[in-house]
């Protein structure tokens, strides 16, 4: 169970975080939400798709890290095997919290943006009282590590807005289409993968010149091609998945 609380120098001054170059990679998340500015780097290794939020149906950007739930094929013996880690994995055990989501006496918080503060999962295995990176110095000021985290969370937060705008634009211009994918799965033959959407390149090609220029200038064109090209990594995931099934081991 998670226990996410607003981070407070007075209450959490003693907490230390176990160092990890790749954030909380212990969790076997199959899909993680990503932001538009990450697409280019992630697309080097990881398949990226447009997905839908299960409770609202709203479009989201996602990195697909496994074929089956409870699996993360980019994680081998605790090591992250891709050139870039999605920010939503890297930020763990920290969270972005709405400041109106908790009631409490006026406690000190670490502000991120208008109405948003840094939160911490107190149940995370990476928090401890003994060894690790300090969050605050003796005077209660944020440590260089925490300042780095705060910057990351702030860019993640502003990235969410940019991402929503990007997806909204694609949806309005009817550029999103279901991805027709069938993957060879061990002992099941070809299995259709549902719930993944991508950019309709045929429709993109039909856009008028003004729209294309606009897309180029605001980076959408680059983002679209990153998503589009990254789909090829799914075949690699299917292969890795198959290899693990055959060997029956986690490490390759």
């Amino acid at each position: 169970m998670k226990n996410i609380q607003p981070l407070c120098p007075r209450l959490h001054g003693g907490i230390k975080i176990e160092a990890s170059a790749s954030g909380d990679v212990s969790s076997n998340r199959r899909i993680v939400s990503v932001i538009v500015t990450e697409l280019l780097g992630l697309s080097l290794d990881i398949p990226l798709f447009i997905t839908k939020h299960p409770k609202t149906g709203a479009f989201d950007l996602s990195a697909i890290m496994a074929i089956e739930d409870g699996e993360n094929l980019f994680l081998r013996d605790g090591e992250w095997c891709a050139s870039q880690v999605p920010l939503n994995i890297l930020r763990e055990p920290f969270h972005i919290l709405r400041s109106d989501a908790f009631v409490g006496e006026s406690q000190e918080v670490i502000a991120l943006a208008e109405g948003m503060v840094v939160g911490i999962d107190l149940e995370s295995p990476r928090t401890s009282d003994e060894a690790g990176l300090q969050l605050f110095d003796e005077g209660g000021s944020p440590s260089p590590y925490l300042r780095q985290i705060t910057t990351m969370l702030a860019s993640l937060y502003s990235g969410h807005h940019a991402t929503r705008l990007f997806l909204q634009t694609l949806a309005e211009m009817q550029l999103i289409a279901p991805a027709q994918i069938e993957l060879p799965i061990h002992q099941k033959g070809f299995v259709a993968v549902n719930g993944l959407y991508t950019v309709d390149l045929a429709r993109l090609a039909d856009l008028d010149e003004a729209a294309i220029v606009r897309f180029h200038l605001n980076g959408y064109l680059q983002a679209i091609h990153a998503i589009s090209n990254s789909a090829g990594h799914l075949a690699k995931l299917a292969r890795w998945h198959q290899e693990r099934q055959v060997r029956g081991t986690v490490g390759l």
Partner: protein
Amino acid sequence: MNITPLKRVVIVGGGTAGWITAGTLSAKWRDKGISITLVESPNVPIIGVGEGTWPTMRKTLQDMGVRETDFVRECSVAFKQGWKYARWLTGAEQEYYYHPLELPAAYHDQDLAPAWLEGKNGRSFSKSVCPQEEACEMGLGPKAITTAEYQGIANYAYHLDAGAFAEFLKRHCVEKLGVTHVLDDVVGIEVAPNDDIAALSLKGGTSVAGDLFVDCTGMRALLLGQHFGVGFRSCRKHLFVDTALALHAPYPSDDAPIASPTISTAQDAGWIWDIGLPQRRGIGYVYSSSHSSEEHALEQLRAYLQPDVADPDALEHRKIEFDPGHRETFWHRNVVAIGLSAGFLEPLEASSLLLVEISSGILAEQLPANRNMMDIVARRFNETLGYHWSRIIDFLKLHYVLSRRTEKFWVDNRVPESIPERLQELRSLWEHQLPWRHDLPRATEVYSAASYQYILYGMEYRPVDYLTYHGEQERRIALRHFDATERQAQHWSRKLPQHRELIDQIRAYGMSTV
């Protein structure tokens, strides 16, 4: 010779029939030099009890360019997944069967009934061949919020607020589809030398000329009936129900489950419909006035409401009387009747809006190029619609003849003279042959053999004996489908949201088009 091309279509009447016709025609023809005008009286209220559709309505709306999200939000829409027939067979308290909208498994390959009739799996026909009955009983919706507009995980149609629907279509037709809307009363008809209708004179002093007129004026059938005197063919000798008492009932709480089937519960002299919309239920008793007094009918209706409605006596009801039947022809000269002007039967199996869709669909596909073509199109239209009306009457009657209820209404319904000839013939056939696709030979049938199977087997029809070529291989295939259906039902129970949850999500977040 008159070969002026057809340019102007004038629709009279602004109920759902009028606006569906206007939208269907306009979506296809407005850019092709055909003008669509709809004349609506500001003084005639729409009848507005057609609250159930067929799945075809999805395509009808999509073809008009309607966003399903807007439709769901603005017309109090809930998803309909079929019919639940309660107490139709013997009248016993807990008895029911389903007519789901999903086709039986393997429907296009093989009849599963012979294997089912062997009775080994102990489940009803509907449950054996289709997971939708279980989904309905679990209160599930037919899709998830992540499913695109007009797509379903399970097949579905709609329950809707008919008044809001007409308003919604009107806005869409006028604002998006360029339909000219004239709000005025028709006070006179200008006749052309060839006896066609040339124009309608309006109370405001103007007149509207047209090449083709669509009569959507409801039961009064202003153009086809009153002006041209085309006769009405009553089918009261087959279908006895002629009166409805309709009301709106509140839910006990805002988060009460919304039923996904249309629930039809048999009574002494007819049946009660129960349609769940997001904010209310639409409930009504349709009965035969020769078998029940209005007082007794009202008592039965209130007794039905008793368990879930705090004070049934406080609910106001509306009485609707109708002569079940249809016009002798539907297209005469340059007038075609669509909607209640063409005819009306009891609302069993939602045939009313379906016929509007079929009629307007044919009209849009076969719009006569000129007056010379019109008589050919009209003759073929009449033949097709005549066929559909007869088949609908057969199918509705089937529900009654299979009952074993003992009240006079039900006994009278089984008198052989009351059964249409063709249905009688099919029943003889089905004593020694299982109902299957060739029994309904048209490529487009209003009710397919699948519907007949659900009703027949649901009401415990059994052949006396029958010939079948089915052997071991067919049996194996069938058993595999029965297993797959059970697994599918389990899969849906994990995947599909509760019906009310789905409606709430759509109202809050909307659906995307992909």
